[in-house]
């Protein structure tokens, strides 16, 4: 360290700083200046190359992610559209009449009869799904005997 004229350090402090500086110098000698120079120059070169690339190339990851997101959104949109179209078409198909009718060609009475028949279709379908037998109490003696006989046969056959 060079001597300082206007503000000399107290001896104790100066000696401690000298020892500390020698210790630091020993550690600093382990630093390879050539290697540091090579690494710094490489980093500067990389950064300079990146700065010279077009904007979209520098942000290619963001661009790629945006493109992928757009493709996924488009696919989801198409799928939703097709599902909705399918759902919308199905009821029409099930309620469509098997023959083509022009309402203009029907007489007033015919039209009313047709509407009534169409309204009766769901009621008839519901009736078909109801069980044929309401309760055991409604069976007569012969039917009860037949039922018991059938149940005994099932038990002996091990079907249940």
């Amino acid at each position, binding site marked *: *360290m*060079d001597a*300082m004229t206007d*503000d000399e*350090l*107290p001896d*104790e*402090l100066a*000696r*401690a*700083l000298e*020892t*500390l*500086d020698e*210790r*630091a*110098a020993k*550690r*600093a*000698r*382990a*630093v*390879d*200046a*050539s*290697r*540091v*120079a*090579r*690494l*710094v*120059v490489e*980093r*500067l*070169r990389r*950064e300079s190359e990146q700065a010279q690339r077009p904007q979209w190339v520098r942000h290619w990851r963001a661009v790629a992610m945006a493109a992928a997101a757009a493709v996924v959104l488009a696919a989801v949109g198409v799928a939703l559209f097709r599902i909705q179209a399918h759902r919308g078409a199905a009821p029409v198909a099930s309620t469509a009449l098997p023959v083509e009718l022009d309402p203009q060609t029907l007489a007033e009475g015919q039209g009313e009869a047709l509407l009534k028949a169409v309204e009766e279709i769901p009621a008839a379908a519901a009736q078909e799904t109801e069980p044929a037998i309401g309760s055991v109490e409604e069976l007569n003696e012969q039917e009860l005997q037949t039922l018991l006989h059938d149940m005994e046969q099932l038990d002996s056959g091990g079907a249940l």
Partner: protein
Amino acid sequence: MRAPATAERADTELIARYLRGEEQAATELVERHAVPLARFLAVQGAPEAELEDLVQDALFRAFRSLGTFRGGASFRTWLLTIGSNLLKDRRRQWKRRQVIELVPEVADPQADPAGEADASWAASRLQEGLARLARLQREVFLLRAQQALAYADIAAALDITEGAARVHYHHAVKRLKAWMR
């Protein structure tokens, strides 16, 4: 330890050459200043295992911000202050992950063991005291006492007045003297 005037002139030329696109100028600048920077950081307690990495980062930052280097201070002084700031940031990270210095100081076996121990204790005590100083006090003290820089140069590098630099120095000495007792 201070870079002579011819070296400062050469630094200015090298900076100009680098800004014109000559990579070789950057290499020369790094080779000239890497070890003194490492020494300056080691005095402040930078761990040996991290020293080269710190020096590399400080130099990289310096080259990136060469456009802001006004030339009021020498390149060396400016670089040392960048290094100090980087060390301060890294200390915060090391505190979080508890960096332990694995390289102990080994005393010279031919030296006076008692005297060596005293000197080593005083140096370690000083290093602790430096770490306790306010940033500006520490930087002014080291730039003045270790690097033997003029107050004008220190003031320019730290963007303070010369009078403020003197005040920081004297406060630092006073606090370190009290700490060493």
